[in-house]
């Protein structure tokens, strides 16, 4: 292709031009606003250069919510297109691009930053640490993720979006069948974000293994921290597989190799294989921290300790191992024959056992409790039945012979949405409501919150239950249209209504944030939920050093014991506190990676080499830099503590 042709959008539509204008206007407005209110310095000092895990957590959450709406817009357009047979709202190409970006955005740029955001905010507080093990690396992780996400998101206005599905199976994703640069965006943007995620995994594993407060043995860790540890273990061992697969895909598309081509000895199955060796553990990376959130929320609002702590931990460890042994169930129909399918069918269904243990443990946590249904608790209580439906259909899909009928159909789509929305999205919304007061010092409105939860739950059921039926009736996924005579119309219309319901539900949450920001009380103390774990034992807003003195841990619920059983948490006297300095390098590297990726996508080799060298230059600079951080003096700590409501 001609050089400039690559940048053109292959299938322009008025909606895309409108988006271009909107992006331009918003950018100008942001630049103008920052200049007018003289906020550039504030933005740079307090946010762009920060290494504080709490601020990075909040930035992850903001990105996740933005991406939720980006992916949600894609979803609404898809459901609208399918609402009626032979609909002409979108053409095939546009539809293909939309379901591809919907999948990638929702999994990698919405769900991942959501859970990593909460990990960032909560884990150090829960284990009584001052920050993560490598705060600067943590900032770099965020900026790499952000660079990857932004790179992926500009695809639809520059050069065209990827259109080979979020699984990007070869040879469809190869140059021959995907000629635009869309799939290059897929390969490079996910690679950059994935590197950030891998660093997060290493960082949090080290943090959780080494930086727990004195007395907090592994078996006294709060359940969310346990789930975060296991999820990060999976990240560390699963993401390198994606790195290699994407690198091979990039080589195929940009350097003419034949890894996944069907000529010259290449093998298209290998991509599917590697993709799912990463892809299946990825699902557990998402779901385990969500389970951790539910454990915290349910035990807080049942006013009881978590039932079966040990079996909860054991089940997660087992899931972490099994998650690496089931990937073939994503392609039972590839012709490996009965033996291989049988093996992977059994390992797949085996995962239901530890997952079931967790469900029963949550139910038994309610037993003899004093249940208070707040918004986070309402999400958790809606999660259990909806997720059970998603989970049992997963067992059905695990039966490989029957899977020949479910595979590639709306039944599958229904299954994973019924798992991921109640499992992950509800958990993230529960966590948003639960941790909001700790983050921002006011609570979200309960009435609006519960209304939103009900609307979202009903929307989920309406949107996805019909797909079980249309799937069994023969509707394949990813079809941009279907005929009147197929009889799929009614199911898809109901789905569309459900999708609208979901949109209203999410809009309600945004309105709730606005409403609560304006009207909610700021006088809520540091423990508004009467919670049980350590993150609630510090002040609100959380001082940058988290805890003035190290807590002494004797049980799984140290804060609860402190409140109810009089076991003092903080015994030491205040000493000077060592903190890392802010640094601009991670942000700069994020920008460099963004341009590097952009050059790579469009095969602009000279800028690519320049920016590769610039990135290594940054790393060399880091290597020689001698920055030992700084100390916060005792007086300063005492002053902050007094201002925030006295020493604890």
């Amino acid at each position, binding site marked *: 292709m001609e050089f400039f042709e690559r940048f053109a959008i292959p299938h322009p539509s008025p909606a895309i031009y409108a988006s271009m204008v909107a992006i331009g206007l918003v950018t100008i407005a942001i630049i103008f606003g920052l200049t007018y209110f003289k906020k550039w310095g504030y933005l740079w000092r307090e946010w762009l250069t920060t290494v504080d895990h709490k601020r990075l957590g909040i930035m992850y959450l903001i990105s996740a919510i933005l991406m939720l709406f980006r992916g949600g817009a894609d979803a609404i357009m898809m459901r609208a297109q399918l609402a009626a047979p032979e609909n002409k709202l979108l053409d095939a190409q546009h539809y293909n691009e939309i379901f591809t970006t919907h999948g990638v955005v929702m999994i990698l740029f919405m769900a991942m930053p959501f859970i990593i955001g909460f990990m960032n905010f909560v884990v150090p507080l829960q284990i009584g640490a001052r920050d993560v*093990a*490598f705060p600067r690396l943590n900032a770099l992780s965020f900026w790499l993720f952000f660079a990857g996400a932004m790179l992926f998101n500009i695809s639809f206005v520059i050069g065209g979006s990827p259109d080979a599905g979020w699984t990007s199976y070869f040879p469809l994703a190869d140059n021959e069948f995907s000629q635009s640069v869309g799939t290059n965006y897929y390969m490079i943007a996910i690679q950059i974000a994935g590197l950030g995620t*891998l660093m997060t*995994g*290493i*960082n949090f*594993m*080290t943090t959780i*293994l*080494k*930086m727990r407060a004195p007395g907090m043995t592994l078996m006294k860790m709060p359940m969310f921290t346990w789930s975060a540890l296991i999820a990060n273990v999976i990240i*560390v*061992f*699963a*993401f*390198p*597989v994606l*790195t*290699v*697969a994407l*690198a*091979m895909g990039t*080589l195929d598309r940009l*350097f*003419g*190799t*034949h*890894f996944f*081509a069907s*000529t*010259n*000895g*290449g*093998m298209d199955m*290998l991509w599917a*294989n*590697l993709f799912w*060796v990463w892809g299946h553990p990825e699902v557990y990376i998402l779901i385990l921290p969500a389970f951790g959130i539910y454990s915290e929320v349910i035990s807080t609002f049942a006013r009881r300790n978590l039932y079966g702590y040990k079996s909860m931990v054991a089940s997660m460890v087992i899931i972490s191992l099994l998650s690496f042994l089931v990937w073939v169930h994503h392609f039972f129909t590839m012709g490996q024959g009965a033996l291989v399918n049988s093996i992977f069918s059994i390992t797949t269904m085996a995962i239901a056992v530890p997952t079931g243990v967790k469900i029963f443990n949550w139910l038994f946590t309610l037993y003899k409790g004093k249940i208070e249904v707040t918004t986070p608790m309402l999400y958790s209580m809606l999660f259990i039945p909806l997720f059970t439906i998603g989970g049992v259909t997963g067992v059905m899909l695990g039966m490989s012979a029957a899977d020949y009928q479910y595979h590639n159909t709306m039944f599958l789509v229904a299954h994973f949405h019924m798992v991921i929305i109640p499992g992950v999205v509800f958990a993230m919304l529960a966590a948003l409501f639960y941790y909001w007061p700790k983050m921002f010092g006011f609570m979200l409105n309960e009435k609006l919150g519960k209304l939103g939860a009900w609307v979202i739950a009903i929307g989920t059921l309406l949107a996805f239950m019909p797909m079980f039926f249309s799937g069994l009736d023969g509707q394949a996924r990813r079809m941009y249209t279907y005929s009147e005579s197929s009889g799929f119309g009614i199911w898809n219309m109901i789905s569309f209504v459900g999708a609208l319901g979901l949109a209203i539900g999410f809009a309600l949450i945004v309105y709730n944030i606005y409403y609560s920001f304006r009207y909610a009380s700021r006088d809520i103390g540091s423990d508004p939920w009467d919670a049980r774990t350590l993150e609630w034992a510090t002040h609100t807003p959380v001082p940058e050093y988290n805890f003035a003195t190290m807590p002494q841990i004797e049980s799984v619920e140290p804060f609860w014991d402190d409140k109810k059983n009089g076991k003092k948490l903080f015994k030491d006297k205040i000493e000077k506190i*060592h903190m890392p300095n802010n640094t601009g390098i991670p942000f700069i590297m994020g920008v460099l990676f963004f341009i590097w990726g952009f050059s790579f996508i469009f095969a602009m080799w000279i800028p690519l080499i320049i920016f590769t060298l610039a990135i*290594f230059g940054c790393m*060399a600079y880091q*290597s*020689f830099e*001698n920055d*030992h951080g700084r100390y916060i003096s005792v007086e300063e700590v005492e002053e902050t503590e007094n201002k925030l409501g006295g020493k604890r």
Partner: protein
Amino acid sequence: MKIDHSLPLEYSTEQSRLRILGFWIFLGAEIMLFATLFASYFILRNGTGDGPSGAEIFEITPVLIETLLLLTSSFTIGLAVHAMRLGNKKAMMAFFGITLVLGLAFLGVEIYEFAHYVHVGAGLQTSAFTAILLTTLGTHGAHVTFGLFWGLFILIQVKKSGLTPETTNKSFIFSLYWHFLDVVWIFIFSFVYLKGMM
């Protein structure tokens, strides 16, 4: 900064202990990275298309030289750490330097080997087999190259500021990295070359 003198210098601060554990976890991730390459290699091994097979292009001599160079460099970096723990900066720097020179020699032979492959018609685009062979070797080679620069920077810092908790920590972590690359090479040597020529 609190310094604990009962431990080797590289473990002496809290931050340095975090770095060492963090690096071990990173090596765990690297195991998976190379395992994925090996899995792909084994699967695409016979995907020679119109190109040559492994047995046709592998040469034992350069491979043996590479192996000996890397094994020896792994030994000398071990000696460097040993000297470092004895507080002998001069010996440490000497062994560290020898390691880097051996690494450079390894890289030289590998570049020769690549040129040879391309010369006999086994380029990146020839077939899936040649692509995965060059990618696997190339990934290892890129790690070595990165290590050479990294090691050089550390050496400069040791020369400048002596054996401090900071520089010893960096050197120790570098030694872990270098030993790990040797382990990866052993697997490449055994299961790519020897198995290919068996």
